[in-house]
C-alpha cells in the first residue's frame, strides 16, 4: 500500500509541477487555464492522500470553477487568440527566473536540512467533523474573520469593476446640472 501511495504521490507531484510550468509556456490562454486547473487537481488529490478529503475536494471544485471563469476573462480581455498570433507578453524574464530558482533552492534546502520534530498526536477519526467543530468552537474567530472579509471583497470588487454611473456623474442627489466627467464630451471639448 505504501508503495502505491509513493508512486501516486510522485506522479501527482510531477503533474502539478509540469502543468504549473506549462501555464507560462503555452500560447493559448485557454490551455494555460486548463494547465493550472490540472495542477490544482493534482495538489487536491495529494491533499486527499494525507486524509484531507474535505479540503482536497474543496480545492479541486473551487479551482476548476475558478479556472473556467479565468478562461472566459482571458478570452474577453485579450481580444485575439494568442495561439494563432503568438506574441511575447513577459518582461524581466531573466531576473524573474533567477529569483524563482533562488527561492526554490532556499526553500528546498530548508525543507531538507531542518531537523523536523516527530509527529505530535493522531488525526481525529472523522476529520471533517473535527474541522466543523473547530470552526464552530475554538476557531470561531477564523470564521468570524473570513465571513466579513469575503463580504467586503464582494462589495469592493463590484465598486472597482462598475463603470461610472449617473451618481458618479451628477452627485448623490442627481441635481448637478453639468456632469463631473474626467473629460468633457461633445463638440468643442
Amino acid at each position: 500500500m505504501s508503495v502505491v501511495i509513493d508512486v501516486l504521490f510522485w506522479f501527482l507531484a510531477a503533474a502539478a509541477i509540469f502543468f504549473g510550468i506549462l501555464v507560462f509556456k503555452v500560447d493559448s490562454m485557454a490551455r494555460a487555464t486548463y494547465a493550472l486547473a490540472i495542477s490544482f487537481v493534482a495538489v487536491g488529490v495529494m491533499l486527499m492522500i494525507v486524509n484531507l478529503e474535505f479540503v482536497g475536494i474543496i480545492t479541486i471544485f473551487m479551482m476548476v470553477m475558478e479556472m473556467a471563469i479565468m478562461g472566459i476573462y482571458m478570452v474577453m480581455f485579450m481580444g485575439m487568440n494568442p495561439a494563432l498570433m503568438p506574441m511575447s507578453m513577459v518582461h524581466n524574464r531573466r531576473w524573474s527566473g533567477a529569483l524563482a530558482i533562488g527561492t526554490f533552492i532556499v526553500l528546498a534546502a530548508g525543507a531538507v536540512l531542518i531537523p523536523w520534530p516527530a509527529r505530535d498526536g493522531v488525526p481525529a477519526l472523522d476529520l471533517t467533523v473535527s474541522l466543523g467543530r473547530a470552526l464552530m468552537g475554538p476557531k470561531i474567530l477564523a470564521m468570524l474573520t473570513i465571513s466579513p472579509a469575503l463580504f467586503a471583497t464582494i462589495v469592493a470588487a463590484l465598486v472597482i469593476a462598475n463603470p461610472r454611473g449617473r451618481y458618479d456623474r451628477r452627485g448623490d442627489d442627481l441635481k448637478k446640472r453639468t456632469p463631473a466627467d474626467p473629460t468633457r464630451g461633445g463638440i468643442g471639448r
Partner: protein
Amino acid sequence: MTLQAVLVVAAAIFAVGLYGALSQQVVVMIMMGLELMLNGVILAIGAFWWFLSPAPDGQVLVLVVITAMTVEMAMGFGVATLMHRSRGSDMTDSATDLSG
C-alpha cells in the same frame, strides 16, 4: 512519501508561481502566478498538518489560505475589468502611473 519530499514539491510549485507573478505582463496571468504560489502553500500546510501535528488547526489554516485565494481572484478580476475599461488594455506595463 516524506515531509521533506512534499515540502520540496511545494517549494517547486511556489517557485514556478513566483516566476509567473514576476515575469508576466497580463493581469490575469499574474493572478495565475499568485494562485500557483498559494497552491504550493496549501500543499505545504497539508504536509505539515499530516506529518507534524494532525490537529484541526492545520485544516483551518488551509481554509484561510483558500479564502485568501478567493479574495485575490475576485479583486484581481475587478482590477482587470477596471483597467480594461479605463485604458483598453490589461497589461501591467500600461499602469505605471504610481511608479517612482
